[in-house]
């Protein structure tokens, strides 16, 4: 009897959320890194309003992507180190459900950290980041990074040098996402016409879908022994 895809994915997501609510291992590490990163940027960059808007989107996304790498590495390593990935692979469920369950957890934790980063940047740089379209970019960009990262973390978690390997393989693949997220954020912050930033959001959405489909298809081969 096969466990339905959605039931399996939600079980894994709920398990990760419950374990993280106890340990706060991922959010703690990502959050602390992100806070220090934003603080360093805020002390280092003394900018006028126009330059600040240009810089803020870079600070936001660089912080989110590096914080997410930290969390993604840990998330999959926790499954590998205790051998628990075997338990998931032993269950009669689609491999894609394992990917989706892990992805949902990673997305939630990274998004929470991203929102906190946006809040801190709003205060330190005096640039309001909480508009509906900016939140949309934040959600889509974070989704893209966590989709790519969850797949690659499953791959690199099997290696000894996973801490260094994940950024090396993830960043080149995440460049299109990063470019679209940064450009979209910059245009929205500078109150450009919708026609200027909407294409970047569309690119983000298309990339998210492509990476999600590839992740679901490829995860089975990534965890295969």
């Amino acid at each position: 009897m096969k466990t339905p895809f959605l039931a399996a994915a939600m079980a894994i997501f709920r398990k990760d959320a419950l374990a993280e609510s106890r340990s706060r291992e991922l959010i703690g590490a990502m959050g602390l890194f992100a806070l220090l990163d934003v603080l360093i940027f805020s002390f280092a960059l003394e900018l006028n309003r126009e330059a600040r808007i240009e810089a803020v989107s870079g600070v936001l996304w660089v912080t989110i992507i590096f914080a997410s790498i930290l969390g993604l590495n840990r998330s999959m390593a926790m499954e590998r180190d205790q051998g628990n990935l075997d338990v998931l692979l032993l269950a009669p469920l689609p491999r894609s459900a394992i990917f989706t369950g892990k992805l949902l957890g990673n997305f939630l934790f990274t998004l929470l950290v991203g929102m906190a980063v946006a809040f801190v940047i709003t205060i330190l740089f005096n640039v309001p980041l909480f508009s509906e379209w900016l939140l949309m970019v934040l959600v889509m960009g974070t989704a893209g990074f966590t989709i790519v990262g969850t797949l690659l973390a499953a791959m690199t978690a099997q290696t000894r040098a996973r801490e260094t390997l994940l950024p090396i393989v993830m960043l080149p693949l995440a460049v299109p996402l990063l470019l679209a997220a940064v450009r979209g954020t910059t245009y929205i912050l500078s109150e450009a016409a919708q026609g200027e930033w909407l294409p970047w959001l569309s690119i983000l959405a298309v990339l998210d879908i492509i990476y999600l489909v590839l992740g679901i298809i490829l995860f089975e081969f990534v965890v295969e022994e």
Partner: protein
Amino acid sequence: MPLIETEDLTKSFGYVPVIKRLTLKIERGECVALLGANGSGKSTLLRMLSSLSKATGGVIRIGGWELPREATSIRAQIGMVAHKPLLYENLTAAENLQFFGRLYHLDPVKNKIRADILLEQVGLARRANDLVRTFSRGMQQRLSIVRALLHDPDILLLDEPHTGLDQRGVMLLNELIMAARAEGRTILMATHEFNHAALLATRILILERGSMILDRPAADLDSAQLAAIFAEQVSA
């Protein structure tokens, strides 16, 4: 028809052969001890039978289903205990079992009842709501057995389950294996311990560099004879 059947099973890592054209039949209800030196291929064989690792060549049939084509149906029939407990340390024992029940799509109410009964049997009922990270190695291993039995599998694959257990833990684990055997489950246990093999198994296999070099009923051997055969036939 044998419950577990392999034909010319082969596994290589790169150019290194780990299992060499292994043909094996295990009948329903048998308790088979799999002995062998480190690197003889015991764990690899168990991982292939459980669908965790793909064979390089040959055929695996379990309960009439064939791997890897019908892996999902096979996985539902298998419970696995490894030397690592394979539990989530930041969840309680009850939460771990609830999670594994969801992975096997078990009815939540029935799963809770079964988990309670099994926890009672292994003496962990009073610790059901404690985090697994507060458990001793022995308690984690007992909980690991409960996890493996939760979905009522026909087959138990045990990969060195006695590793790291104290004397009391070993006794409790042996009782659980005996109980599983009495319930009619088919058990394949990889172990280094001759006395456990002689005590628990109905049949003994010795694997040497990926090939089966001994296949005898356990009743024909005691642990001293087994140790002598092992010393004679297994290279260091």
